[in-house]
């Protein structure tokens, strides 16, 4: 079974999990999408494939917004419009919270990653990158997220409330995160002590 480790953002926990996987199994592919991340991985003797989108697609705002909704704003609480308007709630929330960071290049990276042979993915649970979320949602293979930033943010809280965290599970560093995520329900967590 080949494990793909996709790093869009790093944390101590992510490094530890990557090392654990590499030491346990030789069938591991490590991929990153960011030059800075690549250099940190290299500094940890983790040999990583750096992927970068080759082309800059012309931006279609309509497509971008609908992709964004599909990935980040899909949830029962947001499937409604403001009273007496046609303005969807998700659009306002999106503009407010996440849309600013949404990166269209992820579509091409998604295709590149899907071209690799892998059975399971471990990736950064990174709110600033669409790629891990797309893989978790659409790849059809188990994708585990690794905590790379605090879960105690408004963004994670709202995301949690949508009951729409697509990862097969989340690697977290402590029991209090586990308790927090348990409130959102259905999130499988594995605590890795570092």
């Amino acid at each position, binding site marked *: 079974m080949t494990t793909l480790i996709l790093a869009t953002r790093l944390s*101590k926990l992510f*490094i*530890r999990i990557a*090392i*654990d996987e*590499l*030491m*346990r*199994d*030789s*069938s591991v592919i490590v991929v990153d999408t960011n030059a800075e991340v690549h250099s940190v991985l290299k500094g*940890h*003797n*983790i*040999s990583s494939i750096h992927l970068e989108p080759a082309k800059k697609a012309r931006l279609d705002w309509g497509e971008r917004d609908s992709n964004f909704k599909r990935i980040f704003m899909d949830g029962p609480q947001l499937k409604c419009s403001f009273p007496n308007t046609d303005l969807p709630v998700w659009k306002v929330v999106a503009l407010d919270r996440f849309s600013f960071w949404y990166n269209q290049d992820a579509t091409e990276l998604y295709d590149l990653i899907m071209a690799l042979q892998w059975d399971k993915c471990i990736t950064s649970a990174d709110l600033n990158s669409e790629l891990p979320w797309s893989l978790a949602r659409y790849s059809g293979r188990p994708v585990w997220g690794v905590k790379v930033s605090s879960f105690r943010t408004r963004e994670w809280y709202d995301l949690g409330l949508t009951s729409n965290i697509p990862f097969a599970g989340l690697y977290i560093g402590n029991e209090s995160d586990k308790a927090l995520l348990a409130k959102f329900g259905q999130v499988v967590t594995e605590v890795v*002590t*570092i």
Partner: protein
Amino acid sequence: MPYRILLICDHAFRDTPATAIIRAEIERLMPDANVLIIDIHLLKVAVERYHPHLVIMNHLHDPRRNEILDDVRRRGGLVVAMNPEGRANTVDSMKWSTNDFPHELCDLYLCWGTGVTEFLPSDIRHEVVGCARFDFYFEPYRKLVQTKEILLARYGLDATRPIVTVASSFPQGKFAKKQTDFLVKDWGNLKLSKVKGRENPAEHAHSELEAFHRFQSWLVSLRYEYPEYQILVKPHPAENIEMWTRFCDENSMSIMPMDYVFSLLALSDCHVARVECMTVPEAWIAGKPTVQCLLGNAENEGPGMDAAQLGFFPSDTIDKFLESVSACIQYHTDGKHWLGPRKRYIEKWLGPMPGSAERIAVAVCKLLEEKKPEAWKEPTHQDWVEIHGLLVQHSRDRAIPEMDFLGQFSKSPRWEDTQSWTNRAREVLA
């Protein structure tokens, strides 16, 4: 916390597959366990970072490494002695290998066969488990041996012509002309120079070199007497490769410096080795005819000579040697009537088989469950980063095969190889 088990590997092309299947078997029995296979030269640095609950060591004769193992035990860990290399050949060397080490360091001694237990002192806990490297002659691990077709292609051999495989076994011969001091110090350190017949290491090296040259001259005669035979030589892991490369080149023989004995025997129509060589009974297990060469400096008693008694063709002259090889090739056998005694020999000295890796894993897990060792501390994040970095760097530095200062070729077990073998073993078990 899961148990951390450090498995020591001393030679890439002798120990790696066996340690890998032991690791896979331990993981099967104890899925939470973290098993790490490392080059013996990384023992100290790995122990300081990995904080193992248990170390499986190849021997306990080296006082410097014993200091490290002593630290492991003082910090709550356990030490298991398991010999992956070969069995001692003489009665005296058998006594040395089973007695002459600090018994208090050994929590468990894993013996190959019952013959070894006769020499073990009563204060050492032991189990008879066999040797994992022989598991590759049986299912399921036989699947991991490459097919004859692949091996023929790799060594450029012709499937239609007979193949005589040669296992060399003169590791001390290289010290006769240079680095004799190293041998003297090494044997002094290991107390090997106390063993009868090895009191004078320099003299022993000279006698080995003479026997080696005699062996090579026999092979040259074989080449000229039977030019249709293809001769494939596997140098001993501890020999100086240069003693063979030019010789093989000049005499149109193939050389196998970076492969395993089971690959050598997979190609064999007749296996040639000196009388005490471990590959002789190994060839019996593989069902290959053997020719044992009596080169004049073997001890008269002990497991080595016991094997010679069972050889249909123990050759002490060049004529007998040539005749024996020719007979083996012609009749594809070295005497089936020896099967019973040979089986008894194998059971006594090489141990029960198959299933050695599993028996080793069971013994190790039993010891852990019984003693419940607690490491004095858990590895920190930085420890893990450093262990990983160390293994990667060690592996990278040795990616290009080369001789070490003693002429041993590509000796260091690389992390990538141990990982790859472990994966294959897991697949087979799955």
